[in-house]
């Protein structure tokens, strides 16, 4: 590994000014589970790692029933699924946080890092999209916000401009009768990267059968994670049934643009999109009913 500089700023201003100064030769270090491996394997060349774990805004978890969740970008996955409220209110996030790497990795890896790494197969991104998460970004020209589904622009590339830093996620409090789920397919049970991932959320009407609103997002089937609007419109206003779910699954298969690589062929991935969409929607539906019944 080539030698590089390391800085650990304590404030957002300090971090933004470091990142602005060093431009694309600097990179943000959170848990390091992607970045350090990339540098070691010479897949990324840099002069400076800016460790953001000492910046309070990036490490906080704050939930208010009205405002929803402010989730710091470098909060480790295990803090998310161990959080008593978050683990109850945001089931899709918990599904994803619990899947990334193994236990040791989950103690380091963060959702912010997972998103900024911009892998098409990242587990947390479809889940964040299903939960309508918004990125809160700090930069030399002040702050801005961006929906997660617009954050990734290409494999390994995100929408951050020079000097910008992902601070946190703003995730609205789910409405009543809401359920979400993230599932992925891997050939083993752990320690693997999604061949296909699917995040889904449903909000039911009071009859607990009709779908008021739906979101379906896919991972590992396009250059960036996909929010499939056609799937949402196939479901919204319909009763939850095998027919409506099939329509959504077919819409997802049509939206997917998978490639063939060592983790799966395009043909197999397209097949899995159908299988996983059905399964994720069913689980989200069950959770929505449970949420309604728990009230």
């Amino acid at each position, binding site marked *: 590994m080539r030698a590089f500089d390391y800085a650990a700023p304590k404030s957002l201003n300090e971090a933004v000014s470091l990142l602005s100064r060093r431009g694309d030769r600097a990179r943000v270090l959170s848990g390091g589970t992607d970045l350090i491996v990339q540098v070691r394997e010479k897949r990324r060349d840099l002069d400076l790692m800016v460790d953001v774990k000492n910046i309070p805004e990036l490490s906080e978890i704050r939930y208010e029933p009205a405002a929803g969740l402010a989730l710091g970008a470098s909060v480790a996955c295990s803090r998310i699924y161990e959080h008593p409220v978050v683990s109850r209110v945001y089931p899709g996030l918990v599904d994803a946080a619990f899947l990334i790497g193994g236990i040791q990795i989950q103690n380091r890896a963060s959702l912010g890092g997972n998103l900024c790494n911009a892998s098409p197969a990242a587990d947390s991104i479809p889940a964040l999209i299903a939960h309508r998460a918004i990125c809160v970004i700090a930069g030399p020209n002040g702050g801005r916000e961006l929906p997660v589904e617009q954050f990734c622009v290409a494999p390994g590339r995100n929408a951050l401009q020079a000097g910008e830093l992902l601070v946190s996620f703003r995730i609205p409090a789910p409405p009543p009768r809401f359920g979400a789920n993230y599932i992925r397919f891997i050939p083993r049970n*752990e320690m693997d990267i999604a061949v296909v991932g699917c995040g889904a959320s449903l909000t039911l009407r009071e009859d607990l059968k009709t779908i008021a609103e739906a979101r379906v997002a896919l991972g590992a089937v396009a250059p960036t994670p996909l929010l499939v609007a056609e799937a949402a419109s196939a479901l919204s206003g319909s009763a939850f049934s095998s027919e409506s779910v099939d329509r959504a699954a077919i819409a997802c298969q049509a939206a997917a643009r998978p490639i063939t690589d060592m983790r799966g062929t395009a043909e197999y991935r397209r097949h*899995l999109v159908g299988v996983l969409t059905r*399964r994720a929607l069913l689980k989200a539906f069950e959770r929505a009913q449970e949420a309604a019944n728990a009230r």
Partner: protein
Amino acid sequence: MSPTETKQEYQVIGKRPVRHDGVDKVTGRAVYGADVQLPGMLYGKVLRSPHAHARIKSIRTDKAMSLEGVKAVVTAADLPDPEGRTANLGELGDVPLRNLTRNVLASGKVLYQGHAIAAVAATNPHLAEEALDLIEVEYEVLPPVMDVLEAMKKDAPLLHEDLCTMELGKKSDHHSNIASHQTFRRGDVKAGFASADHILEHEYRSATVHQGYIEPHAATAVWSADGQVTLWCTTQGAFSMRAMVHQILGIPVSKLKVIPTEIGGGFGGKIPSYGEPVAALLARKSRRPVKVVMDRTEVFMGTGPTSASYVKLKMGVTRDGRIVAAEAMLAFEGGAYPGAIVGAGGLCLLAPYNIENLVIDMYDVVVNKPKTAAYRAPGAPNAEHATEALIDEFCELLKMDPLEFRLKNASKEGDVQANDVRFPRIGCIETIEAARASDHYRSKLNGPNRGRGVAAGYWMNAGLTSSVMARLNADGTVTLNEGSTDIGGSRTSIAMQLAESFGIRAEDVSPSVVDTDSVGYTEVTGGSRVTFATGYAAYEAGQALRRQVVEQAAKLWKVEPERVLFEGGVLRDLDDAAKKIGLPELAETLAHRGVDIGARITVTPQKVGGVFGVHIADVEVDPGTGKVTILRYTVVQDVGKAIHPSYVEGQMQGGAVQGIGWALNEEYVYNQEGKMLNASFLDYRMPTSLDLPMIETIIVEVPNPGHPYGVRGVGEVPIVPPLATVANAIAHAVSVRLYEVPMSPPRVVKAMLAKK
């Protein structure tokens, strides 16, 4: 329990003492290959070919050499010219020395991606890595040959321009990637098939798979000013490593000492030399100690996996379920140099069954992949996969219980094998019967997409030469030096055999694996031979110590040795109850008198006991994703005599797990250019502890008459049955047969969709 089991009572054998090396290993104190640190040591890194097949037009190292901190750069030009010379590899016979030397550092051509070309020693590993980028190699890229059947075609690009096929023992004159063709033939195959009621034939394929030992290769060398070379390495055979390095470097054996470190797995893959001669060359050039440690990617791309294979098998069976004829063609990839272990595959292919008429053709073929190495029963899993899967189809056809079918055809003592050698006492029938009587096999399996499979397997095991040195200490304990590196808990199993034979407790023996200067010649830890052969040597050492202490007590008491009995740690005069002495007291007395009680034993036991296993698997197939979950798995195996049953069970479980990995997900994935796409444990998917249930074990003991305690090697055969066991279980779960391993989720789905 088998009828041949002796009623002998053992004091030590069959018990489960704590292993001698256990505490050091679980507390992280044990010294493995990469742990070696010497004053002034440099770090070596190896430059590897990015191409699968290319001519090397030039190598320039001057820029690398001028980088601050770089102390030496070596290439093939630093090695003695191997042309025309032969290397003796002991068990593996004679091979052209060139095949060893050129695999250590390429010259002329690179034959696989990852082929070593040059190496650098620098004051830290990061600098060494940086220096590699400064070595300039000019290649002429050639078309790669990545598949055994493609490589066999007449118009295939040739890896070695001068390679001619050894055709049935005679060198032919046509140039080819086929290094050899051998045949086993018995009876009249044509007549055999004519007498069959059912004939089935299928082609089976297996992918390139790696042993996946957890510890990467590591070697540290010192080349002293007087030409003495000391080499620390993680190897399965210190003596065979010494022999290879001696031949590759052209230095006398007396100038070379190999110190084997603890070893984090080998499974056959830590027999060849890779970084060892390179570390020595760098040490000579830099006049400093040099350590060369591989990373995981280097292990995948630069060291020997096992052969990918093609097996075509045709069998004829009568309507009452007797196999009357078999015809097989096995083509195995040797990798970049000849040496696929296809002969063992051919011998094992049909071994569990007594078949009168058979012909087996075996081909060793070179392709642009790493030179293959042994991997746990090398050749047998891919070969027997075909037999055991095809038998399952016959059982379905005949509506016959698969274990009943196997019993009906089972090999027994006196039956003739494919190589015309008669089986000695074997436990094939006993093993099948034990499987049939098992709780697992008698249990019911319910539920959709679930199925049960069984398969058998055979491995012949090896004997070969082993040495030990044992010495009685002044307190009555014994120090035991052995030459077999310990990859599976063998040092305890060997100490137990000495303890039993001598008549002391296992914990009073202190076993050590020592360097090549400190014990007699010992062949590699391989062929499941160590507990058998090195254990045999330990037995002989125990007997020798016993004779000596009895003689010394007799001398002390001035009586005939026949009157002295050694039992329970005490020597007594049978005719005089007053005369008795504990072993510690006698040992102390002898030490003060300068009497050395010790034994130096070398044995080459011939009567090796081959072993059979039967595996049972229950699986569930996810009909949506094609993922196969193992619900329950049982290994039934003849072990001869279990010296330390925990280690025997561990071998049975570990072998099954590796075989299941091979069956379900493991494979080298290559692109069109012959570049490996999954050279990491992330994408080379071995099963983890989260993927499998606890593997159940049933030990069958049919003692080997060729060993004083009846030992048979146990380590390898458990990797043989899983491929077909899982394939048969999948077939019964979802009525789809897969003929290619791994039976990965995409393949399972594809087969299921094709059937719909």
